């Protein structure tokens, strides 16, 4: 595939593949900031699930955490793109990477549409639980897809 051949030789791949610590540093950024992103989303999810912060609304918690989530997600995605560029062909043909990419896309879309809308409103407990459970499951899918991409590469 021409686009993959084009992507296969790029300066980021050179940096990640031909330096001793390039790939490891990118992975560490990816993992640490991913933890931060999901952790902040989980704070809102715990409220939606009725498990924590009973005296605060999910809207307030979302307002307090969104900036951290956004910054952490941005760093995670940028580091992830650098990792992808280290070997685009391998990732493109990996079924687990495809699973992760789709799960990530769905998780981000869900987070900034339905999840955000539900959390910003005053959801009924049932709606809150459903929104929280879907969020947790989507992010767990992303982590699992990422892990298996690495393990089975």
């Amino acid at each position: 595939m021409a686009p993959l051949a084009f992507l296969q030789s790029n300066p980021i791949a050179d940096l990640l593949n031909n330096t001793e610590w390039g790939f490891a540093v990118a992975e560490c950024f990816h993992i640490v900031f991913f933890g931060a992103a999901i952790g902040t989303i989980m704070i809102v999810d715990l409220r939606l699930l009725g498990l924590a912060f009973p005296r605060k609304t999910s809207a307030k918690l979302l307002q307090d955490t969104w900036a951290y989530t956004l910054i952490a997600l941005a760093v995670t995605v940028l580091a992830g793109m650098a990792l992808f560029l280290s070997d685009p062909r391998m990732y493109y043909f990996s079924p687990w990477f495809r699973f992760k990419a789709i799960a990530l896309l769905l998780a981000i879309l869900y987070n900034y549409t339905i999840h955000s809308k539900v959390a910003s409103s005053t959801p009924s407990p049932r709606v809150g639980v459903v929104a929280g459970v879907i969020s947790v499951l989507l992010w767990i899918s992303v982590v699992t897809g990422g892990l298996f991409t690495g393990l089975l590469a």
Partner: protein
Amino acid sequence: MTAVEQTPWVYPVIMATHLCCIALFGGMILMTDLRLLGLALRDQTIAEVVNGLRPFKRIGFVIMVTCGLLMAGSEAPTYYPNPYFWTKMTLLLLVGVHALVFKPIVYDHPEALDKCPAIPTRAKAAAMLSLILWVSIPIFGRLIGYYEPGEGKAPQTVTHR
């Protein structure tokens, strides 16, 4: 341990659980620390954040450590000579020391911190050290996979994802 070693899918599942816990609960540690530093969740009291997230962090910690022990136990000969593994273990030990030092003076009395006119230095010190420790632990955890016995340094990474 035998099941972890001999069943092909058990190790990846344990590792996935380990990583999910880091992702789900590591962020809560981050938010607690940022609150103690006065950088996030400022509309919540310190007590609300510390007490509200405590049970989830404890559950996450127990699951993480259990999965970690199962993984390390199943491949003990591989882990034993790995310097990154021992660095991670040392950092976990330091987490224990951190808890022994700061639990009685910070985490057990968050309400007292809320009554202070400014966040006390001991609370900020606890948060900073916690951040340093908990950022370093997943980093060294990942680096475990980069070690090749005999070389004493990381190999060309492209072959070791």
